[in-house]
C-alpha cells in the first residue's frame, strides 16, 4: 500500500477581485467580486514507503499547495488525499505525528535558546520516550556533527549549523514521511554535501520516505531516483530520472584533449567546437551515432591524450520542459541551451 496517495487532487483559491486606483479600492470595500485561481489541477500520484522523490516545478507551479494539502494545513477543493492511511486535513494532529517538515527558508527552532532546548521541547510535543529520544539524539548528533553547537543559542549558529539542527528537529519523532522544501538553499558546497549525505543515509538506514521540493537540481540528481514534475498545477511527468534523460537527452558531448594545438576541428556526424586550442567538444545525437564510432573517427584524425563523455544535465532538460512543455516523443533537437 502506498504511503502517500492522491487522486484527482485539486485546489482552487478564491480571492476578492481588486480594481486598481483609489476608486477601485473603495469599490472592493463594498462590492465583492471573486476571481478563482486554480493552483492544483487534478494531481494523482502514489508514493511507496522508503521512496525518495523529487517534486519539481517552476515557481507558482503548485508545489507548495500540494505539500500543504499533504501536511493537512490546506483543505483540497476536491479529490482525495491520504498520508500513511490518514486524511491529513480531517485529522491534522494525527497526521502531524507521521510527518516531519524542513523548510530551508524558515526555522522551527527557538531563536533565543540553545539548540538542545528546542529538541527537548519537541520531545515533549511528540511525546518521544526518553530512551528513543536519547537514541535519536545520539544518532543525529553523530550523523550531523552537532556536538559542538548543541548548547549554542540558535541565533548564533551559522546557516549550515542551523539547517542541521532543523533536520534533527524535524526527525526526532521518527516521522514516516518527511517533506523537504529547499533544504540546501544558501548553503556552501560542503554543507550541501553533508545535508545530502544525511538525507540519503536516513532514507537507506531507516526507510524514511522523503519528498524533496527544490530548485537545486543537483540535490535531485544526487538523491532521487524518481521525479515528479508539476507545471501550472498539472503533473507533467512522473517517473525515473533515467526515463527523462533518455527521452530528452538525445545528445551527448564527447570532450577530447588533443596532443597538439589545432585552429579548426571537424568530424562527420558531430558538431565540433574548440574551447581551447587543445580541447575539442563534439556534440552528437546518440540515436544516429554511437560514442564508439565517434571516438574512432576522432582518433583517426587527431592525436588524442584524453577523452570523456558528458551526459546532458538534468537542469538543461528541466529547463527545456519548463519552456516547451513535456512531450512524450521529443524530437532530436538539442537539449542544451
Amino acid at each position, binding site marked *: 500500500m502506498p504511503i502517500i496517495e492522491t487522486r484527482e487532487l485539486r485546489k482552487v483559491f478564491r480571492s476578492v477581485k481588486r480594481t486598481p486606483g483609489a476608486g477601485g479600492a473603495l469599490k472592493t470595500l463594498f462590492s465583492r467580486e471573486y476571481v478563482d485561481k486554480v493552483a492544483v489541477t487534478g494531481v494523482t500520484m502514489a508514493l511507496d514507503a522508503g521512496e525518495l522523490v523529487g517534486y519539481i516545478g517552476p515557481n507558482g507551479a503548485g508545489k507548495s499547495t500540494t505539500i500543504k494539502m499533504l501536511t*493537512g*494545513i490546506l483543505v483540497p477543493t476536491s479529490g482525495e488525499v491520504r498520508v500513511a492511511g490518514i486524511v491529513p486535513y480531517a485529522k491534522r494532529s494525527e497526521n502531524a505525528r507521521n510527518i516531519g517538515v524542513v523548510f530551508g527558508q524558515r526555522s522551527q527552532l*527557538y531563536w533565543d535558546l540553545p539548540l538542545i*532546548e528546542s529538541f527537548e521541547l519537541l520531545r515533549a510535543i511528540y511525546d518521544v520516550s526518553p530512551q528513543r529520544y536519547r537514541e535519536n539524539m545520539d544518532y543525529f548528533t553523530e550523523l550531523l556533527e552537532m556536538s559542538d553547537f548543541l548548547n549554542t543559542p540558535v541565533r548564533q549558529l551559522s546557516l549550515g549549523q542551523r539547517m542541521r539542527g532543523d533536520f534533527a528537529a524535524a526527525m526526532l519523532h521518527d516521522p514516516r514521511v518527511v517533506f523537504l522544501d529547499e533544504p540546501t538553499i544558501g548553503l556552501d558546497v560542503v554543507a550541501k554535501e553533508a545535508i545530502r549525505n544525511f538525507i540519503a543515509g536516513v532514507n537507506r538506514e531507516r526507510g524514511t520516505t522523503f519528498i524533496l521540493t527544490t530548485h537545486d537540481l543537483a540535490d535531485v540528481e544526487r538523491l532521487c531516483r524518481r521525479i515528479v514534475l508539476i507545471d501550472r498545477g498539472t503533473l507533467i511527468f512522473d517517473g525515473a530520472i533515467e526515463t527523462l534523460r533518455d527521452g530528452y537527452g538525445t545528445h551527448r558531448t564527447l570532450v577530447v584533449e588533443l596532443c597538439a594545438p589545432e585552429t579548426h576541428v571537424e568530424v562527420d556526424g558531430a558538431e565540433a567546437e574548440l574551447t581551447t586550442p587543445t580541447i575539442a567538444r563534439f556534440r552528437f545525437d546518440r540515436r544516429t551515432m554511437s560514442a564508439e564510432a565517434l571516438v574512432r573517427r576522432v582518433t583517426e584524425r587527431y592525436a588524442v591524450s584524453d577523452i570523456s563523455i558528458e551526459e546532458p544535465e538534468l537542469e538543461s532538460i528541466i529547463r527545456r520542459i519548463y519552456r516547451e512543455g513535456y512531450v512524450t516523443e521529443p524530437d532530436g533537437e538539442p537539449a542544451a541551451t
Partner: protein
Amino acid sequence: MRFRVAPYLAFAKKAFAREATYRMEVFTNVGSLLARLYLMKMVWVALYAQNAAPAGVPLHAIITYTAIALLMSLVLEIDGTRIIRDRVREGSIATDLMKPINLPLYFFSDGFGQTLLHAVLIVPSLLLALFIVRIDVPSPFVLLAFALSFALGYVVNFLMNFLMNAIAFWTLETFAIQLIIRWVSDLLGGQIVPLIFFPGFLQQIVLALPFAAVYSTPLLIYLGKIPPSAYAAAFATQLAWTAGFAILATFVWRGALQRVVVQGG
C-alpha cells in the same frame, strides 16, 4: 486523541527561559515602574492637597491603589499573544499547524511562561516600591479574594489580547488598533484612576465594560471598596466576561483557521 499537559508545560518553561535572556528589558521594566510610581505619588499628593478625598478614598488608599495597579501591570502589560501576530506575519503559523498541538493553548502557555518571569519580579519591585510609598495591607481573606480576582482578570486580559492579535489573520497589521485599545483600556480599566472617581452616569458605564474586570475589580477588592458581601457578584461578572470572550475567541479562531486552511493564509 488523548490530551497531554507536558507539551504546554514545556512551552511555558521555554517562554520563561526565552524571556529571561532579555535581561536588560526586564530591569528597565522595574526601573520604569518605580519612576511611574514616584510620579503618580507626586500627582496624587498635589491633587489631595487642594481637594477633599473623592469617593471616600483617603490619600494613603489612593497611593496603595496606584502602587498595586503598577505592580499588576508588570504582569498584565505582557502581551503573551503577540506571538500570534508575529507568526502570522512571518508565515510560520503554517509550521505551527503542522504540529500535533492545540494552538490557542500553545499561545496561552507561551504567554503564561513570559508572564511568570515578570511575576517573579513583583516581589523585588514591591520591596523597592516600599522605599517610595507606604502600602496598606488588607486581611488575608481580602488578599485571597484579590488574588482570585486578579487571576480572573488575567484570563480576561489574555482573551482580549488574543482577539486583538487574531485580527492579524485578516489584516496582518494590528499595531495601531492595539495601541488605541491599550490606552482606552488603561483609562477605562481603572489602571490610572479608580473607576469610582468617575461621575455617576459615566461610572455606571465604565464599570459595566470588560476593561473593569482586568484592573478595577481586583483593585477595588484590595481597597475594600468592594466589600465581601459583593464578592460573589464581582467574581460572577469577571467569569461572565471570561466566558463571553472565550466563546468569541473560539469563533474567531475557527474563522482564522478556516481562512488559513481554505485560503492558504
